[in-house]
Every structure is written in structure tokens, then in C-alpha cells.
């Protein structure tokens, strides 16, 4: 009796760790959605594809970086990740500058369709340049032997995903709450006109937001590729959608909400596919979202906006 209870508990904990690892990757992508939404009030549909490009940047950089930092190694993996983040940050700024900025005074729907256009462009261009067939992501991290803690098998990659996510979240929190540019971000998100009148350069703040969000997406792309090493140009669509759902779930525009939403979606999806049915896993995120929005239309941590007439 207690033996079987122990086995169930172990399986439960195992699923929880899998779910947390998956959820923290979603959380990193969701943060990008929510930051852009918080400032520009529009859904950056191309964000999932920036995540994909992050993974591909790692794929193409790894052999070059291996010349200086032998791979797999922790230092080398770190360099790969940081370079991918830098590339995607530049790309995010570029996309905003040329596709979204000319439309800033236009209706949100126009910008949304442009974002969809950018997303399609990145996917098709990716298929053209990288090839549509899945590629095997190189091993950039030394695979430590699976650790056994009381019968629980811990994959070193999962621990690294959790640790890196936690570090990035703390760094983001520091940037947003303690630095000058972070204060400016919050000011623009609160009221762009008033912030501009107070001398905040909104263009710089918006570019910085895109850089930050895209860098987080690239980090998520590398972490994803380390855990699920098959990458292809369309890999960003589903994680992108789920991360967006996570951002809405937590209350879009709210940073802790996005992280919480990502974790909730990741854990629920893992549990449902582990215990109930794995074929329904892609519908779980949306079912959770609809249920929560029916009860709390502004998301878990979102503020209810009072409509003024």
C-alpha cells in the first residue's frame, strides 16, 4: 500500500518537474508578449518566430563558437545563449523600427495584421534559408548523469532550464523596477503621452522593450532546443500561441502574471498529457484560458479596467 503510494508520489513529482521546465520556457516567451502589450497595446504575433530564430541562431553559431570555447561546456553554452539573445534583440528592434513604428498612430488591427505578415515572412524565409526539414540541435551542454534523489530522476537540462529562467526573471525584475530605463518603461506603459511630456523618449523605450522581449524569446529558444533538440522553421507557432495564452491568462500587460500563466499552462498541459490523454495536449492551454476568462475576464493578475464614458 505505502509502496504504491510512494510510486504515485514519485510520478507526480516527476511530472511536476517536467511541467515546471516546460512552463518556465513558456513564461520566458510570454514575458515578451506582455511587455509589448503593456506599452503598445498590441499583440506582437511575430514573437513566436523570434523564439524560433533564437534556436536557429544557436544552431548556426554553435560550431563557430566551439572553435574558441569547446562545446559542450557550460561556458560555451552561455556564450551561445548570449550571442543568440543579442542577435534576436537586434532583430526585434529592427522589426519594430520598420514594420510597426510607421503604423503607431493607426488602429491596432492594422498593426496586428502587419505583425501576422512579419510572422509569415519569418516562417517562410526560415523555410527558404534553413530548409523546411527539422534539424538536430547540437549538444552544447555537457549532459550530466541523471541524478537520482530518493528515486526521483532529475535531468540536468531541466535543472538548467529552471535555474536560467529564474535568473532571467530576477534580472528582468531588476531592470524594470530598479533602473532608469525600467522606470521609463513603466511610465510609458502607464500613460505614453504624459511620459513623453515628462521628457521620456518613448521611441527609445519602445525599442528597448522589443530588444528585451526578443532577447528573452531567444533565451527560451535555446533552452527549448537543449531540451527538445529537433528544431524547424515552424517550431515557434505552437509555443508562441501557448505563451500568448499564458500572457492573457495571467492578465496581459502584467509581468508576474505572464510568468505565472506560463507555469500554469506548462504544468497543466504536462499533467493532462501524463495522466489523462496526450492527444488532447494542444487544446489544454486554450481550455484553461477560456475557463479562467469566463470567471475573471481580465486574467488572473490583471486589473479590471473601468470603462469611462
Amino acid at each position, binding site marked *: 500500500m505505502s509502496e504504491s503510494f510512494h510510486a504515485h508520489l514519485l510520478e507526480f513529482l516527476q511530472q511536476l518537474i517536467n511541467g515546471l521546465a516546460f512552463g518556465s520556457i513558456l513564461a520566458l516567451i510570454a514575458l515578451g508578449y506582455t511587455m509589448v502589450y503593456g506599452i503598445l497595446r498590441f499583440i506582437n504575433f511575430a514573437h513566436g518566430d523570434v523564439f524560433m530564430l533564437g534556436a536557429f541562431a544557436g544552431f548556426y553559431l554553435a560550431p563557430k563558437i566551439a572553435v574558441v570555447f569547446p562545446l559542450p561546456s557550460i561556458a560555451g553554452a552561455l556564450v551561445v545563449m548570449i550571442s543568440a539573445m543579442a542577435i534576436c534583440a537586434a532583430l526585434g528592434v529592427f522589426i519594430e523600427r520598420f514594420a510597426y513604428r510607421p503604423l503607431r498612430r493607426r488602429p491596432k488591427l492594422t498593426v496586428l495584421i502587419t505583425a501576422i505578415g512579419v510572422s509569415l515572412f519569418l516562417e*517562410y524565409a526560415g523555410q527558404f534559408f534553413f530548409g523546411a526539414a527539422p534539424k538536430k540541435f547540437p549538444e552544447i551542454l555537457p549532459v550530466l548523469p541523471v541524478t537520482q534523489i530518493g528515486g526521483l530522476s532529475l535531468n540536468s537540462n531541466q535543472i538548467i532550464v529552471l535555474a536560467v529562467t529564474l535568473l532571467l526573471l530576477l534580472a528582468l525584475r531588476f531592470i524594470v523596477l530598479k533602473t532608469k530605463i525600467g522606470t521609463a518603461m513603466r511610465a510609458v506603459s502607464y500613460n505614453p503621452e504624459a511620459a513623453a511630456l515628462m521628457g521620456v523618449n518613448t521611441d527609445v523605450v519602445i525599442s528597448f522593450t522589443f530588444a528585451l522581449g526578443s532577447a528573452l524569446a531567444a533565451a527560451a529558444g535555446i533552452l527549448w532546443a537543449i531540451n527538445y533538440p529537433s528544431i524547424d522553421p515552424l517550431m515557434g507557432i505552437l509555443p508562441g*500561441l501557448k505563451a500568448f495564452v499564458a500572457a492573457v491568462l495571467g492578465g496581459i500587460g502584467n509581468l508576474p502574471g505572464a510568468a505565472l500563466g506560463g507555469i500554469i499552462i506548462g504544468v497543466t498541459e504536462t499533467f493532462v498529457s501524463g495522466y489523462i490523454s496526450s492527444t488532447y495536449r494542444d*487544446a489544454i492551454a486554450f481550455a484553461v484560458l477560456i475557463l479562467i476568462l469566463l470567471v475573471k475576464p481580465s486574467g488572473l493578475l490583471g486589473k479590471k479596467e473601468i470603462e469611462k464614458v
Partner: protein
Amino acid sequence: MNFRHAKTVLLGASALACLASLLADRMNPYWLYIFYDIGIGIVMAVSLNLINGYTGQFSLGHAGFMAVGAYTAAVITNQFGELNFLAANGVFAVALLAGGLTAAVAGLLVGIPTLRLRGDYLAIVTLGFGEIIRVVLQNMDQVGAARGLSVSHGWTNLFWTFGLAAVTVYVVTSLVNSTYGRGFIAVHDDEVAAEAMGINTTKYKVTAFVVGAFFAGIAGGLYAHSKQFLTPGGFGFMLSITFVVMVILGGMGNTLGVILAAILLTLLPEGLRMLSGVNHLPGLTVERPLAWIGDTRMIIYSLLLILLMLTRPQGLFSFRRKRN
């Protein structure tokens, strides 16, 4: 498009469709299928325009309703073997109607959350419903699950496609231009003011979803009997996006513009394919000066989309100043 002329247009279009279907035997089958796609695109875009354009809601799940209609109609017609002309068209009509009604029920289910949600939240919930429909179909063994469902009869023809496109245009324009239909536009312009004037905004929003879904279901039936093979993956979120793009390029709430955009956006990828020299017209050998387009045609398509939004954000065919 004025209401007074709508009936004439409807009759004319149906007659034209009837006539064209007589000539269909002589047409190149490749073009014929493109014409079907155009007709289906018109039904989808015009019905979505009722929800997104006139009523000002934002639905990203129109392909889901299409899937419901397609599978329902296909399951019904698959019960029958070879039928004579009259019986076949009778069964087809019933199947299309059934597909439309099932999709309308799905529309009612999606319409209910719209009572509480607005803007982006509504968009993501409709997207979610579309994805859920796809995943449910993927798990239904009775309709072939992920393997897909083959449809026994290729009953879609020019008469049904363009006749039903004309009916859709007629119903949507006369609905919006009727006294009752002013309510849709009122909800679009200012929901709070509309409510203050005693308009039942909830009823209008749900009506828009149900009517829109009904026609999407019918388009699904046409699609099923034109392609004769259905896979759940084909009705993903990208297909919904295609129709949203048609509505926005046409100019939200501008039926004529939306029709033109549906035609243009169906022809554009095919046109790029032809320019690149993949020769679908036997006997017509052309120089292939643009052969390089081949692999890049979808890249060009997406770039054109971005360019169009940057240069004509009010819609390609919108020449009036939009009311604000």
C-alpha cells in the same frame, strides 16, 4: 452595395453561376478549382465581415466554424452512394444546410463568452475555440482523426459556390442595411452609447456570431465537396488568419471591398505560382522570366501583405474616409 439593388444582384449572380456551371466541362480543371476557392473565400470573408467588420468584434476562429460545417456535410453525404442528378443535388443541399446549422450552434457557444470579453481577450478566446475544434476533430476516430476523412462525392460546382456566395452577400448586406441591422453598426461604433439607447448589444453580438458561423459552415461544406479530402490540420489558425486578412484588406465593413480582397488574395499565391513558371495550362508554354519566384512566392506574399498594411492601412478598396 445598396439594399435596393441587392435583390437584382442576387438574381443576376445566381443566373450567371447557373450559366457558368453549364460551361464548366470545357474549363481547365485547375482554373475551375481556383474559382471554387474564390467562391468559398467570398462566403468566408463576407460572413466574417459581419462579425469583425460591421459588429466590431474580433474573431480569430472562423476556420473552426468552417471545419464544423465541412465535417458535418461530409459525414452526411458519405452515407450515400452514386445518386442521380436531382437526388445528388437534393442531398447536397441538405448536407450544406446541416453543416451550416451545426456551425451556427458552435457559433452560439462561442458567442456566449463575447458577452463578457472585449478586444484582444475576445480574439484569443475565439482563436482558442478554433484550436479546440481542430484538436477535437484530430481525436475523433469516427471522422478519421488525424489521418483525415475522404469525401466520396465531388458535388461542388460553380452553381453552388457562386449561388451561395451571392446568397451570403445578399443576406449580410440586407441584414446590415435593415432597420434591425443598424444595431450591428451601433455596437461597432460605440457599445456603451448603443446600450444607453436601449439596444440589446448582447443579442446583436450573438446574432453576428451565429449568422457568421452559419455561412462559414456552408463554405465548409462546399470546401469538403471540392477538395474531397479533409484533415483537421487544414483548418488551423493560419486559415482563420487568411480570412481576417481578406476582411481587413477589403476595408472592415465594406462588403464590396471584402469580396474583391477575397478574389485577390486567392489569386495572388496562384498568380505567383504561375509567374514562377510552374505550368498548369497545357498548350501554353511561356517564357519563365520569373522562375526565381518559385520557392520564394510565399515570402513575396508575406512581404506584399506587410507593404499593403504600411501603405494602405484603411483597406485596399476603401476610398471613403472611415467614420471614427
